[in-house]
């Protein structure tokens, strides 16, 4: 560990906790995301289970000190299994008055508030819309909480008095390191991983590097030497299944899953995309891995992103395009082309609040209907979703497998909550990943006089013949095809045949995916909570809680939205009531009712934030 004073005052005690939810909140320029991520990595490395929830404004730099400018990072860590970032916080770090005002309602009674007192001057109070003369630090409104006051700004500047080259602005930029150092002290942590991180980030700028380390240590030492803080805390390792772990975020897991699929299939990968929140990080990530042969193309718009990927797929690459709701709308016509061409293509939608531009940085599950039905004509495509940050890895890997082995575009749904959330991940070994069988047609078969691009195998899959293959020259396009030959054809019977074939081909994928499992609870019973996507953690922890109280409730979580697993109908009918919680106005529930004639009940929250465990427990209880 780096040099840290070790003269513990006599009255110090260290307490062991099972479970902590902490939220770092400050101005969007205060570096709260970085602080949260650093504390997350430090926590993960100790084998403590965790889940995170970054919550930041759409504006890069909203007016400083204002309520819309507040950026938050919530982390739930525990020696027990963690499924959600936590409903309410035990600890709130508030860098200014606005951060306190926005977040205090999510704090548990008796919770701790660590405030930067400098962020509560007259100007900050006014910007946070406190009435003239009202200061929450002085008016008793926080009496229900334990408030720890630290003048972070002053202490940061003081600790940097030996850095004459740094201006006040530059010094103040290190405030978050003071807080991080203090929190490290509070939770009995080492500073090592953050110092390594700072060295990598500022290695060439010695002054910035040294000042950040200095402030980080100052924060730690402040906790250590100031006698006001009498308790330190420790959270023990979680009992997770044995193996090697790392921390991973959803978009990062998605990138890794794509790279793994490219490696295992032996096909080159091409990402054609246009930046959009919250999907852009996939582009940022994949563009780093050129030595894996990944080609990334930042196109001029969403349409060029997907159509360039179609061009790449036509040439034999795994074509990928990434976007979020509004971009998905723009790509619609091209998705129809991919369905007609029957070529592999991965369309990733990291959902956000809609409609239109909606809530760019907030999460929602409101594009399921769009994925299902949002194209002209009869245009079926498989739909697959991820349920947690690390699940993005295996879910996208499966999406690529289906796309290639079934020669079809696939829609993959993630959302802002999963994309930016982090959790420990027992990462796989490449040798253990399932195979992806990609095969091109390379020559005419025995007795074949001419290549028939729309001839099909038992899975109704057509052969993939790529340009450059001698003797297999052929033309494909968006006009209706004649069955087998692929020639343009407008005959009535042929169109009906082709529409039915395209549908059956997608339906038949149900024969090549696993059956639906019950995640927890019995196979039969009173209430089944059926979820998809990022509601996984909340549903699981709510159902586990109710099971522990002896209720008859089960949880099933769908990875495959289209086609559904073959046994889903049977599962649904094994329960008296089916509840479908979603972060939308009721989408999966409509599809379930439509396909299975089951009177499924919706539970909806459309606030741009995840459903909490507490809310769900209450909602499920009403049905029990």
């Amino acid at each position: 560990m780096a040099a840290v004073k070790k003269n513990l005052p006599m009255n110090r005690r260290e307490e062991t906790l099972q479970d902590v939810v902490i939220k770092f909140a400050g101005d969007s320029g205060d570096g709260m995301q970085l602080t949260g991520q650093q504390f997350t990595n430090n926590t993960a490395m100790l084998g403590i289970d965790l889940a995170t929830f970054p919550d930041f404004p759409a504006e890069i730099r909203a007016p400083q000190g204002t309520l819309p400018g507040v950026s938050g990072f919530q982390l739930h860590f525990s020696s027990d299994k963690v499924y959600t970032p936590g409903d309410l916080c035990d600890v709130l770090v508030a860098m200014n008055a606005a951060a306190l005002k926005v977040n205090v309602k999510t704090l548990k009674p008796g919770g701790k508030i660590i405030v930067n007192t400098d962020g509560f001057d007259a100007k900050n109070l006014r910007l946070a819309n406190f009435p003239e003369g009202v200061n929450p630090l002085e008016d008793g409104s926080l009496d229900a909480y334990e408030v720890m006051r630290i003048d972070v700004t002053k202490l940061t500047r003081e600790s940097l008095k030996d850095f004459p080259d740094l201006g006040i602005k530059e010094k103040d930029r290190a405030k978050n390191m003071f807080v991080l150092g203090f929190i490290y002290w509070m939770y009995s942590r080492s500073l090592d991983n953050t110092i390594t991180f700072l060295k990598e980030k500022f290695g060439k700028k010695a002054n910035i590097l040294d000042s950040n380390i200095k402030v980080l240590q100052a924060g730690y030492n402040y906790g250590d030497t100031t006698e006001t803080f009498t308790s330190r805390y420790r959270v023990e390792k979680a009992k997770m299944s044995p193996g090697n772990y790392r921390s991973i975020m959803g978009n990062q897991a998605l990138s890794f899953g794509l790279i793994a699929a490219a490696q295992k299939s032996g096909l080159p990968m091409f990402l054609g995309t246009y930046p959009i929140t919250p999907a852009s990080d996939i582009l940022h990530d994949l563009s780093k891995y050129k030595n894996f042969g990944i080609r990334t193309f930042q196109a001029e718009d969403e349409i060029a992103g997907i159509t360039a990927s179609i061009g790449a797929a036509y040439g034999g690459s795994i074509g990928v395009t990434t976007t979020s709701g509004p971009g998905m709308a723009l790509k619609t016509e091209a998705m129809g082309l991919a369905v007609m061409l029957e070529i592999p293509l991965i369309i990733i939608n990291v959902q956000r609040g809609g409609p239109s531009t909606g809530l760019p940085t907030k999460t929602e599950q409101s594009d399921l209907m769009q994925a299902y039905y949002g194209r002209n004509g009869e245009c079926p495509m498989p739909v697959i979703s991820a349920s947690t940050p690390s699940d993005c890895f295996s879910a996208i890997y499966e999406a690529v497998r289906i796309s290639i082995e079934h020669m079809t575009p696939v829609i993959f749904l993630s959302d802002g909550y999963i994309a930016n959330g982090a959790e420990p991940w027992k990462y796989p070994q490449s040798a253990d990943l399932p195979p992806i069988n990609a095969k091109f047609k390379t020559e005419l078969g025995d007795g074949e006089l001419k290549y028939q691009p729309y001839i099909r195998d038992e899975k109704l899959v057509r052969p993939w013949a790529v340009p450059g293959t001698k003797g297999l020259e052929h033309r494909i396009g968006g006009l209706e095809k004649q069955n087998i030959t692929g020639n343009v054809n407008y005959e009535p019977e042929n169109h009906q045949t082709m529409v039915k074939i395209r549908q059956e081909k997608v339906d038949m994928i149900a024969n090549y995916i696993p059956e639906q499992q019950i995640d927890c609870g019995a196979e039969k019973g009173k209430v089944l909570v059926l979820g998809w996507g990022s509601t996984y953690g909340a549903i699981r922890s709510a159902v586990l809680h109710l099971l522990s109280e002896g209720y008859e409730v089960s949880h099933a979580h769908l990875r495959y939205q289209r086609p559904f697993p073959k046994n889903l109908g049977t599962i649904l009918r094994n329960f008296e009531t089916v509840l479908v919680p979603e972060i939308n106005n009721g989408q999966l529930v409509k599809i379930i009712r439509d396909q299975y004639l089951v009177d499924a009940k919706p539970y909806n929250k459309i606030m741009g934030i995840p459903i909490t465990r507490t809310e769900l427990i209450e909602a499920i209880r009403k049905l029990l």
Partner: protein
Amino acid sequence: MIETANSPVAPVLTAKDFSTDQEVRWCPGCGDYSILAQVQKIMPGLNVPKENIVIISGIGCSSRFPYYMNTYGMHSIHGRATAVASGLKATRPELSVWIVSGDGDSLSIGGNHTIHLLRRNFDVNFMVFNNQIYGLTKGQYSPTSEQQKVTKSTPFGSIDHPFNPLALALGADASFIARSMDRDPKHLQQMLVRSHLHRGASFLEIYQNCNIFNDGAFEIFTEKSTKPTEALFLEHGQPLVFGAQQEKGIKIDGMRPVIVDLNNGVSKDDLWIHDEKDIYKAQSLVRMFDDPSVEGHFPRPFGVFYQNERACYEDSMKMQLEEAIALKGPGDLDKLLRGREVWEIV
């Protein structure tokens, strides 16, 4: 990468080898027939294996083209052929990629992709069949239709100012800019071959007559009686000369081109000598876009306006990949998945 069958001794092909069994369905008399014939004629001479040729089109009359070419081909969606071709070329640089598009497809709905394809400089051949009308949707004005044009959608005359396609292409930093016409098969063949030979994005505008909805739009440049005075054929290193007896020329006076009479004591040595590499001259040439009915107008140039080599996108992309591999070694999946901060639970 995908292996391509590049046999060293390719059998000699003819134009017929490039035609398909599909019935050509353009209106009788359409200029597209000539363009198809010229493309089929030059293909055997390019020394590119047939299986390495890909024709990508968008939507419009011209975009039926791939169905009639016995190569690889894709009839994609409206305006996006350029983007499809970009993805294909980025991943398969060894293919000879030809884009077939019309004035609506490439300058209206697909205008965005057109300029970006040109600035990125993919090594593709981009043919724009310009007939100054929407044919497939039966006769609305296009972004190249002249102002005042009366069409189905402009009964009182179009108020849209038209694009000057070559000026637009030059503005997007196209590395090859040329113009030809359906009614001059020889010239068109030359321009097609030049497009192919250029390494980079070749923008070839082809004046194409739509005899149903816009018949005679380019008659003044194509008819025997007016062609010599209205069309100016550019040749690298040669003076700009036109007229029935080659009696007129264009000279540079200060910053501006002027038309001069060669019988008036002006010799060919005084004229503007065409230089395909000169972007300043190219900027003047693309601006010779006058309405032929205006007194004292410039003739319309045909030929290669500009040609210069610069890095092609797919080459730079490939180079970055190779450099990354040279620097870091080929990607190690297990190392990637493991990352740097790992802990073990026992």
